[in-house]
């Protein structure tokens, strides 16, 4: 609980029917969270089965290739996270309600997590299949840059935590980072065609069975991401409520 958040909550005093409305909001949010959790778990388990047992074994790289069925969805979904960050950051700058900011932060955290997972699985795969830990191929490189952008956002929020301007500045950074995504995509694409390296990025035909598994895991990873995002956002809103309550309590105690 920072002093500035409590002060901000105090200045945003709302009317008294807030408690009644609020608890039904929480109830609904918690229910939605549970629904996402319970959908995500079986989807992920099914995805694991498909990826590690059902999918055909790749001839040249062997079993390690199976990580592809999660490696690619993590990468694609981190791009999606940026989309959410863009909308939420713009929403925060235009509307000013803290819930937009909490949405942006939740999306950044999940995007950062997914980027980290891509950067952990990629090198392991590369080492097994091509003998090197890192290859400047398009997907790994662009994920690295996105990871750095997410990390800089989190760094800013951590090191300006006590500043009341922090949320607005973070929103600006979020917008800049999101606008950067197509630039990163094309830039890295052209760069890797001019400096060809070992290709993790597959181009062209995929065995139809493999394609089906990939489509499935893409959805599974997406639902997992939404579940994590929703939970994280719920935590953010709870913290916002706590800050408001803190402001109320401090005021009462002073009387």
């Amino acid at each position, binding site marked *: 609980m920072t002093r500035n958040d409590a002060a901000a909550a105090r200045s945003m005093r709302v009317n008294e029917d807030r408690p009644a409305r609020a608890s039904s909001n929480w109830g609904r949010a918690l229910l939605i969270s549970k629904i996402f959790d319970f959908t995500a778990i079986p989807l992920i388990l099914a995805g694991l089965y498909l990826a590690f047992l059902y999918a055909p074994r790749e001839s040249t790289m062997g079993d390690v290739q199976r990580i592809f069925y999660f490696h690619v969805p993590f990468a694609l979904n981190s791009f999606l996270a940026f989309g959410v960050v863009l909308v939420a950051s713009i929403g925060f700058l235009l509307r000013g309600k803290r819930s937009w900011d909490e949405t942006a932060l939740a999306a950044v955290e999940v995007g950062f997590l997914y980027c980290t997972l891509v950067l952990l699985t990629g090198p392991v795969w590369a080492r097994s299949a091509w003998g090197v830990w890192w290859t400047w191929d398009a997907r790994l490189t662009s994920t690295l840059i996105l990871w750095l952008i997410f990390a800089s956002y989190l*760094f*800013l929020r951590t*090191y*300006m935590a006590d500043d009341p301007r922090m949320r*607005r500045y973070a929103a*600006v*950074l979020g917008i*800049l980072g999101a606008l950067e995504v197509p*630039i990163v995509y094309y830039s890295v694409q052209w760069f890797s065609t001019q400096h060809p390296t070992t290709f993790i990025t597959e181009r062209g035909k995929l065995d139809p069975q493999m394609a089906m598994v990939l489509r499935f895991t893409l959805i599974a990873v997406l639902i997992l991401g939404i579940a994590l995002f929703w939970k994280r956002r719920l935590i953010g809103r709870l913290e916002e409520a706590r800050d408001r309550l803190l402001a109320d309590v401090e005021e009462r105690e002073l009387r």
Partner: protein
Amino acid sequence: MKGYLAAIAALVEKDLRLEWRSREAITSMIFFSLLVVVIFGFAFQTRKIDPTTEAPGLLWIAFTFSGVLGLHRMLALERENGSLQALLLAPVDRGAIFLAKVTTVLGLILLAEWITIPIFSILLRVSVLPCLLPLALITCAGSLGFAAVGVLLATIASGSRLREVLLPLLLYPLWVPVLVGCVELTGLALSGRPLKEGSDWLVLLAVYDVIFMTAGTLLFDLMLEE
């Protein structure tokens, strides 16, 4: 519209006149670039630098570091004089303030870069005379994007105690994809090839500049709401 441009011109003139009096930002940027080039010379054991593969990267590293220095100086000066607060009270469009700052910083950065290029050429024995015009174009296009994003991020970072660390930390991830383009284009230029071969990169730079100049003009206002 005319008033808008006049406001920008006035602000730029004020800042440049202030800078001209002390010349501390531009001299420190130039000296810093010179030192970076010297360090490269020694780090590469003074052997011949390949103009296509090595020189462009080194040149843009020097530009990046001195550019960040320029941004720091510009904002430090403002903080010392409290002039940002004063400007915000004046009836000037915030977008105009942004554009004025970008213009000022861009001017300083380009000047430092164009002075660095001959120093680089002499010390590291890379020929630049045949490609001065393409180099000028590349530095303008690249540095404009750098300045636009840099002014936004420098304003954000200036609020923190860790501003010296925070600015590069926020800037470099957003700068890297464009840096790649600048380096590729500079490689083309230094090896005597026509810039048309890198037209993709030129388009990327142009798009980057447009996106971030527009975003900056709009966001600067929203960012500084008091």
